[in-house]
């Protein structure tokens, strides 16, 4: 090829394909697992990370080509077995329950694995040795191209072919495809699903581990690699179509190339770009490029647990509890006031998510976006434009509400997992903007100097301010749920079809609920920024969205009173455990896993059920 511009493009294409190859190794397993088990496996990024770290240990110990290639394979096999362990010891107990629970359990595994990696391999980045025999570069179109990346491309294509044969030419693959369509019928024909699911987890985890292991000579293993790859893999799976391996292949190539060329064309927009693609695909073709439309049901079932009970917290109890909480800042020191302020803001954040998730049946994976919009809104108005505190808080609520109004319009067109993924995509866009738009947001350095008005500068006063404002907002949300709007929302969740038939516009109600939830999340985010004195992009990271879901589930989905309880327990636990051990994430992860297995109705739901049983004079 004589033309230098063309050959440059060709080289970049190859680089993009190498990226795509690793992305495919991770996402095809994620897609396979989702297709067969209907589990959105957050731990897939952890498998990838474990693959890299285990491979590092094996490869740096044993030298030579055998040591290197053997080490990579052995590491992948080890990760495969870890995947099997997760399926057998955790997920198997959750099949047949609400669809959200296995997903949360896998997020618990993410936290546990993060701390396990920290404990075993330490905090530093680890770069593996170069691949023996593939250290050099070869001439392609007049440019030198690393031969290891060519190997990655070949590996990606080889795995795709091998997987195709496995799925289309073996009995196991036939069962997998049948189970993807109707696993219950496969069971009625005498196939033990648990064994099939275990096998699928082995294959998926093995491939993710392989993806991490082969990445080692290119990029150092670090502690963020799990979340960064899982988000990319989600994008690939959603764009390609959940459960479709060919779709994962196609989408990996698209996303890989987009990243490579994106850096060249829009260096400031790389992070946003892939989420824009995902959002566009979800809106135009929700089932993905090569996916098949999924039957309804899905994540709305998350809410099934206990909503029939219609359990109410007695008013006396509620007021006593409020009075007790209000007395705490008087007697506690400043530390207690700071913690209580955080509990108050997170209570409102959790309650706003409950508002759409419980009665609305809308499980959002991106609620942190609105928290973050509020936090950044207040921070910028106060620190950069010198606005007063009250005006800034109000404006932050409006900003987050408008954000939710815009994103919500798209999101409520989808349901279940697809809804969750679209909310995640929008949240990641907002997060990426905060990271990359440093002229406005300060990038990773964040915005500092965000302090409350002088009269509220005292910790005691600010604590009461937070309690009052959050308490008022939660009460307001609760009031809305008792109004006809709340009942319509519940009816839409329980039977969207029937509501449509009697002329209720379910979607419009959901849209409104989404926007209101965003508005109140924005207020809580604004208060949070004021209480901390600044904001960083982490205020709207994925883990904050998941924290919110965990708080809501801790409290239970039966009553809004549960969410503040969940927020209090969650914050309290984190503070307590954080003061005892550096590994608080692992403990929180273990708690999440225990929670979904043992207390699927949440704390308040559990107590409520006990109380109801006692009242009936039963056991």
């Amino acid at each position, binding site marked *: 090829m004589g033309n230098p511009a063309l050959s440059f493009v060709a080289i970049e294409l190859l680089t993009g394909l190498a990226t795509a190859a690793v992305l495919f190794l991770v996402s095809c397993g994620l897609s396979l697992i989702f297709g067969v088990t209907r589990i959105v496996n957050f731990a897939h990024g952890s498998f990838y990370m474990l693959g890299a770290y285990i491979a590092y240990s094996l490869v740096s110990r044993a030298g030579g080509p055998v040591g290197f290639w053997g080490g990579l394979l052995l590491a992948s096999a080890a990760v495969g077995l870890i995947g099997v362990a997760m399926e057998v010891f955790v997920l198997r107990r959750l099949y047949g329950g609400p669809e959200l629970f296995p997903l949360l359990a896998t997020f618990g595994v993410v936290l546990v694995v993060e701390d396990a990696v920290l404990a075993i391999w330490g905090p530093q980045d680890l770069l593996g040795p170069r691949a023996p025999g593939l250290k050099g570069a070869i001439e392609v179109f007049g440019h030198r191209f690393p031969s290891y990346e060519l190997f990655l491309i070949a590996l990606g294509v080889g795995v795709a072919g091998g997987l195709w044969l496995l799925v289309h030419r073996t009995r196991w693959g*036939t069962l997998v495809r049948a189970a993807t*369509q109707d696993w219950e019928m496969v069971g009625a*024909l005498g196939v033990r699903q648990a064994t099939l699911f275990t096998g699928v987890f082995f294959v998926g985890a093995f491939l993710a581990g392989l993806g991490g292991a082969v990445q080692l000579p290119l990029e150092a293993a670090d502690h963020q690699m799990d979340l960064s790859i899982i988000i990319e893999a989600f994008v690939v799976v959603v764009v390609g179509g959940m459960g479709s391996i060919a779709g994962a292949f196609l989408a990996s190539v698209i996303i890989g190339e987009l990243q490579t060329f994106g850096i060249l064309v829009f260096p400031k927009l790389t992070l946003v770009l892939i989420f824009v693609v995902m959002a566009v695909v979800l809106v135009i073709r929700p089932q993905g490029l090569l996916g098949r439309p999924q039957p309804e049901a899905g994540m709305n079932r998350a809410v099934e647990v206990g909503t029939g009970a219609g359990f109410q917290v007695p008013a006396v109890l509620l007021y006593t509890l409020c009075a007790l909480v209000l007395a705490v800042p008087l007697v506690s020191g400043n530390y207690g006031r700071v913690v209580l302020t955080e509990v108050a803001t997170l209570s409102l954040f959790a309650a706003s998510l409950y508002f759409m998730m419980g009665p609305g049946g809308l499980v959002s994976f991106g609620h942190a976006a609105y928290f973050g919009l509020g936090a950044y809104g207040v921070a910028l108005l106060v620190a950069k434009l010198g606005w007063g505190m009250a005006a800034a808080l109000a404006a932050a609520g409006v900003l987050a509400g408008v954000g939710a109004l815009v994103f919500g319009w798209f999101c409520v067109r989808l349901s279940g997992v697809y809804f969750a993924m679209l909310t995640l995509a929008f949240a990641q866009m907002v997060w990426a903007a905060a990271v990359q738009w440093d002229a406005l947001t300060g990038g990773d350095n964040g915005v500092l100097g965000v302090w409350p008005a002088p009269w509220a500068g005292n910790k005691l006063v600010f604590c009461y301010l937070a309690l009052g404002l959050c308490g008022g907002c939660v009460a307001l949300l609760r009031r809305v749920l008792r109004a006809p709007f709340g009942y319509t929302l519940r009816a839409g969740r329980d039977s969207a079809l029937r509501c449509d038939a009697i002329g209720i516009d379910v979607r419009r109600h959901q849209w409104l609920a989404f926007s209101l939830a965003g508005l109140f999340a924005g207020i809580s985010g604004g208060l949070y920024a004021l209480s901390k004195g600044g904001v960083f992009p982490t205020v709207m990271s994925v883990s904050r969205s998941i924290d919110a879901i965990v708080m809501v589930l801790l409290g239970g989905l039966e009553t809004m009173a549960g969410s503040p309880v969940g927020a209090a327990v969650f914050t309290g636990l984190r503070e307590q455990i954080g003061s005892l051990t550096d590994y608080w994430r692992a403990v929180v992860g273990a708690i999440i896993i225990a929670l979904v297995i043992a207390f699927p109705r949440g704390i308040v739901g559990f107590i409520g059920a006990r109380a109801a049983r006692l009242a009936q004079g039963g056991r």
Partner: protein
Amino acid sequence: MLSVRGLNTFYGQAHILSDLELEVARGEVVVLLGRNGAGKSTTLKSVIGLVRPVCGEIRFHGRSIRGLPPYAVSRLGIGYVPEERRIFTELTVMENLEVGRRPARPGAPGWTVDRIFALFPNLGEMRWRGAAMMSGGEQQMLAVARTLMGNPALLLLDEPSEGLAPLIVSRMAQMVRELKSEGLTVVLAEQNLRFAALVGDRAYVIEKGRIRHSGTMTQLAADEPSWAAYLAV
């Protein structure tokens, strides 16, 4: 062979089956007759384990199978053909049969792909075709064939005649008789009385989840006025 006693099944709060009793002896074709919503499908699903009865007893060869998961019930030798057929439309005919294939079982007719195609010649002609491209009657045959590949001793057939043309229905009846002559025991849910009369040895009339009447096909025919109301729409 199969004996059901005091079976009660709920969907949520709705009480669907009340104290249901059934006896099925080896080699019989027993028909569950009832109109739409009577509880026929629920009875079969309770036996195979797709729904969990709240109480009662289900015994197969004297062994209690209530509460077992469907795969375990199926492995004991009970084959289930659902009313909705639930064909794997993403798979070919051969692959559908492969999903159903289980090892041979002593005391039950053994099936191979060749024997299946001898019983259903038109399936043999379209063995590589995607199941999505088949007519309703062909899909029904495939659903039966797929379950037979598991070499069951007892076959639970849910309304195989539903939505099929009269000619295909009589082919289905012939098939059931052939299966019987192979030594298979069959429980058939039906609301089509003509079809039931063609194949059944005995029948139970079920209404609102209760058995209202039972007897041999000839007894029932003689006694029609006393139970016909339960079938009328």
